[in-house]
Every structure is written in C-alpha cells, then in structure tokens.
C-alpha cells in the first residue's frame, strides 16, 4: 500500500492534443479517490499515466516514495480493472487470477492460497474452471476484481468498471467495491463519468473538466459548496438550478437579499426550493411536467416573469397537478452565488 503523488503532470498526445494541463493531486495511503467528469475530460488519460500505459509528457508521478515516470507498468506494482474487464478469453477463471502471480514467480502454494481466498471473497469459487465467455457480465466483473486483489498491489486503478453492467447490477457492484476497498484498505483511484457512482464511492472526489481539476474534496462538501458553475451543474441529480441575478432582482424587488460583489448567477438545489412557506425570494410559476420517482417528485416549473424552467424536488407525492400554478420561495440560506465570467463561486 502506498500514497500516490501527482506533481505538475501534463499530457500532450501526438498531434498536439493537450489532454491534461499541469495537474497536481495527492492521494493518501488507503484512500479511495474518484475522478469524475464528462467524457473526454482526461480521466482515463490520468489513470493510464499512473498505470504506466501512457507516457508522462511533463511532471512526476510517485507511488509510495518512488518516482515511477520511467517504470514499466509491471514494476509499479499496481492493478487495474478495465471497463471491458480485459479477461484473457482463452484462460479459465483460475488461470486469469494466477497469471499475474505466476509472472512474478510467486510460489505455487502461495498462489493457491491467494486465489482460493480471492475467489471466496468475491464468491466466484464455483466458476474457477470456467472460461470468461461462460460467465455473465456481473461474474466477469467479479473475476476482473479478483485478478486485481490476488496481486495485493500497492494501488487499485479502476477505469469505469461498471459501465457495461445494467443499472441494478451496477448498484450492487458499487456497494461491493466500496466494501472491498474499506476492508482491504488499498489505495484506489476510480474513474467514472457517473456522478452518483462518484458520490457514493469516494472518500475524496476529484471533479475534472477539460484536462484540469475543477474541485477536490469530500463528496458532500462538493455538493454543499460547489466551487464553480461546472461543479454545481455536474454534481447532484437533478442538477442545480442556475438563475441570472438581474432577472431575479427585477422579480424579487425588496425581497432580494444583499449579494457579495461580483455575484451574477444564483444557484439553488432542486430540493432547496420550498413550496408555500416564507422567508426568502417568493416566486410563482406554472407546473409544466411532473416526474413521480416514487419517494419524491420532480416538478418542472416555468417561472412567471423570467422565461426559465426551474426543477423542484418535493418529498412524497406532489399536491399540485400539471398546468396548475404553484407558489414557492428560494430560501436565502440555500442560495449559491457564482460569477459568470470566471465561473467561480462568490462568497
């Protein structure tokens, strides 16, 4: 086990494609860090540089106390779980698990002990003699995890490992990965574009955008205090409502609170808006659409006076119907201020 230190790392692909711009990140020993961001933001590139599958254009990556820039993937003592699992199709599950240990000259009895243990933990013992193509998606995923844990590496690297599973299985595997990582306490870097997966798995969340880090922190801190418009829009589902200040000021009149210098966009989470109630900016609008999601309902409301649709999350069943008018308030404490030009949060 080890910490991972990324200092001033850049990646330029042939053809002058700048995938990562001078990036710093420290990952502590035993921590699970999730890299999240839209497709093409450079998550996989960063992960593959840690793994040694891509060269590092500039800067240094250290695992433990060693700078690994010049080391082969095999010498970095990390394990990786790929999106397509990358199981060796011509080998049985057992051979897949053994491959990495054999290549490192692990003694036979030690190999058997570790494979048996990993198979037990992941509940794949009954499939050990099968070929990957005889397994379901979820079982393959477990084998891919098994191949990582038998190695007892310094770090696990995951590149969207759950993307190929259906929603239900994805939920289950997410919990299992979390539990496994907690038990083994192996430093992990997990890449995903799914913000829910990111929020639930991460000790620390790294939101990336266009090859740069937007914000790093505990998932709940990022949710509560997004540092930029990008993070505000990316973390949380349904996404945060963003309203231009001038339009709101015209509507709210005296109810408009005093805002810090430079605030020109206000954000509010869909569950922060209160239907009825008082003590905030009072607004009203027409319900265009209701999505009942079971325990809560999502209301799409077109605000009167400003031509914008806000999303409201109500607990339980909605008391209003579509096309009806609804009054609500934006509580001042729930508002987030942003500057449009810099895209940054304003305090």
């Amino acid at each position, binding site marked *: 086990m080890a910490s991972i230190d990324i200092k001033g790392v850049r990646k330029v692909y042939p053809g002058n494609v700048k995938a990562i711009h001078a990036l710093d990140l420290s990952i502590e020993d035993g921590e699970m860090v999730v890299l999240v961001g839209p497709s093409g933001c450079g998550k996989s590139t960063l992960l593959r540089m840690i793994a*040694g599958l891509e060269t590092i254009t500039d800067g240094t990556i250290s695992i433990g106390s060693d700078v690994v820039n010049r080391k082969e*993937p095999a010498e970095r003592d990390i*394990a990786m779980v*790929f999106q397509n699992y990358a199981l*060796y*199709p011509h080998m049985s599950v057992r051979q897949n698990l053994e491959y990495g240990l054999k*290549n490192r000259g692990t003694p036979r009895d030690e190999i058997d002990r570790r494979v048996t243990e990993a198979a037990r933990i992941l509940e794949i013992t009954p499939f050990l003699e099968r070929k990957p193509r005889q397994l379901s998606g979820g079982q393959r995923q477990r084998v891919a995890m098994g191949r990582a844990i038998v190695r007892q590496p310094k770090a696990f690297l995951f590149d969207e490992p759950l993307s190929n599973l259906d929603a239900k299985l994805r939920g289950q595997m997410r919990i299992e990965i979390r539990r496994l990582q907690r038990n083994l306490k192996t430093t992990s870097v997990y890449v995903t574009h799914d913000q829910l997966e990111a929020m639930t798995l991460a000790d620390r969340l790294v939101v990336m955008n266009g090859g740069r880090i937007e914000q790093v922190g505990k998932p709940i801190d990022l949710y509560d205090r997004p540092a930029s418009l990008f993070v505000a829009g990316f973390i949380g589902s349904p996404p945060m409502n963003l309203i231009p200040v001038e339009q709101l000021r015209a509507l709210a009149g005296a109810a408009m609170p005093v805002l810090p210098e430079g605030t020109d966009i206000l954000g509010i989470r869909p569950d922060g808006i209160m239907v009825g109630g008082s003590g905030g900016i009072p607004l009203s609008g027409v319900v265009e659409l209701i999505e009942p999601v079971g325990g809560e309902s999502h209301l799409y409301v077109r605000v009167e006076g400003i031509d914008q649709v806000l999303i409201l999350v109500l607990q339980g069943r909605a008391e209003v119907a579509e096309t009806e008018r609804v009054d609500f308030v934006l509580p001042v404490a729930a508002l987030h201020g942003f500057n449009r030009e810099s895209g940054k949060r304003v305090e």
Partner: protein
Amino acid sequence: MDTKRTVFPSQGLPYLLVAPQIIITLIFFIWPAGQAVKSSFEREDPFGLATSFVGLSHYVRLFQDPAYLASIGRTAVFALAVTVISMGLALILAVAVNRLIRSATTYSTLLLWPYAVSPVVAGILWWFLFNSSTGILPYMLSFFGVDWNHQLNGTHAMILIIVAASWKQISYNFLFFLAGMQSVPQSLNEAAAIDGAGPFKRFWTIVFPLLSPTTFFLLIVNLNYTMFDTFGVIDATTTGGPNQATNILVYKVYTDGYIGLNLGSSSAQSVILMLFVIALTVIQFRYVERRVQY
C-alpha cells in the same frame, strides 16, 4: 441474429441468377472430375481406340511404385517447408507491422504485392535470381563456399521451389495474421503488461493463443496451396527436375499424364489428390469454426 431475406417477385429468378455459376462449376469442375474418376478405373490402348475396365489396378500399382512413394515424401517435405516458412515469416512481419502506428498501411500494401504476382512469374523471378550463371544469389552464395546449381543439384532445386512458393504465400498469411492481431483487444495486452508479462511473454501467452483460429485456418489453406496450387511455380523453374527431385504429386499428375501419356495412372493420382483436398476442406469446415475457439 437477424437474417436478411430477399423476396423475389418470381420463383424462377433466383435459380436463373445462380445458373451461370452452377454451369461453370459443372463444366469446368464436376464434369472433368467425373471423367478423371472414370478413367482411373480404365485402361486405354496406345491409340485411344479401346478402353477396358481394370478396377483398382492403377491405384494398387501406384502404391507399389517407388517413384510415386518418393514423390509423396518430396511433397510432404515441400508442403511442410513452405507452410512453416511462409507462416513463420508472415507472423514475424505481422508482429512488426502491428507495432507501427503511422506507416502500418504503407507497409501492409507493399507486403501484399507478391500475392498479386502470378505463380509462373514468381517462379521465373526466383529462377533468375538463382540462375547459376547470371543470378545474384548464387554469386553471393559463392562467397560462403556454396556452389549453387539447381539444374544439377536436387537439394538446391528443392530449396529454389520452396523459396519461390513461400515468397508468394507470405503476403496472404501476413494479411490474415495482421487482421487477427488487430482484432486482439489492446486492453488484453495492457492487462498482461500490468500483470508483469514482458512483450515476448505477452505475445506467446496472450496474442498467439488468441490467433489460433487464424493459424489453423492458414495451416489448412497453405497445405492446400502447396499441394495443389504450385504447378506454375514448378513448371516455370525446375519442371520437376533434376532427376525427379522436385517432382511433387501435383506435377507428377501432369508429367505422367501429358508427357508419359499414362492417362489411367495420372487419373488415379489426381483422384487421390482430390480426396486429399476434400479431406482438408472437411477438417477446415468442421474444426475451424468450433474446436479452435477460445
């Protein structure tokens, strides 16, 4: 899986459309093959006026004929050598080209050219290169103390036809190996690299086993090629000589039939070859699809 079905307006049209292919196959393949089978059981008098049924006697005599048995041995040597050399070199070239990122297509195209050359021209090309008085290769070999003369030396002649036949076949094998390698997902190589396998080990434990369907397919195709499709190469270079040293089965059918005018024996030989090609094809169809999968 969905299967596309085309509905024809009239019942007869589909048959009409496949008719040319069927007719060509009947006239140029099935009918001559039938004739060969028939005449392999018959003896014809020297003037071609009378034929008599002789049963299996052509076959029996063939397998008692030391010249025929020797030809089987030579064919085996030739077929195995060409298959091993052309597949081996093709594999090495495919590995090399597969590592290239930018110029891969250029190299692939250049490596394909020999395949476009007809067997006769390929044979003549190598005959010139190996010509004992004017060729460049004998000149170079002379520095190593080799006195090259494929017109007198049977081993030299065999090497010549092996080289000429392999050279042509490398292109074909290369293309299949390259396509096979490119269909091995890159992530498998990466996973193996992380699992501590060096490039050499990755090739032998991951890529090569995954190529086994391609390898098996090529094995059959190459055996077929060397045994039946190399007439042109031999006719253009050694014409079976010197002293029968390169008279492989397919060429012997011709020499015994058209030059020796022993049509019965020649027919029996071609029937044996035909059975062989049928056997290889059956193996290919039965096993390529199923057993050599992973």
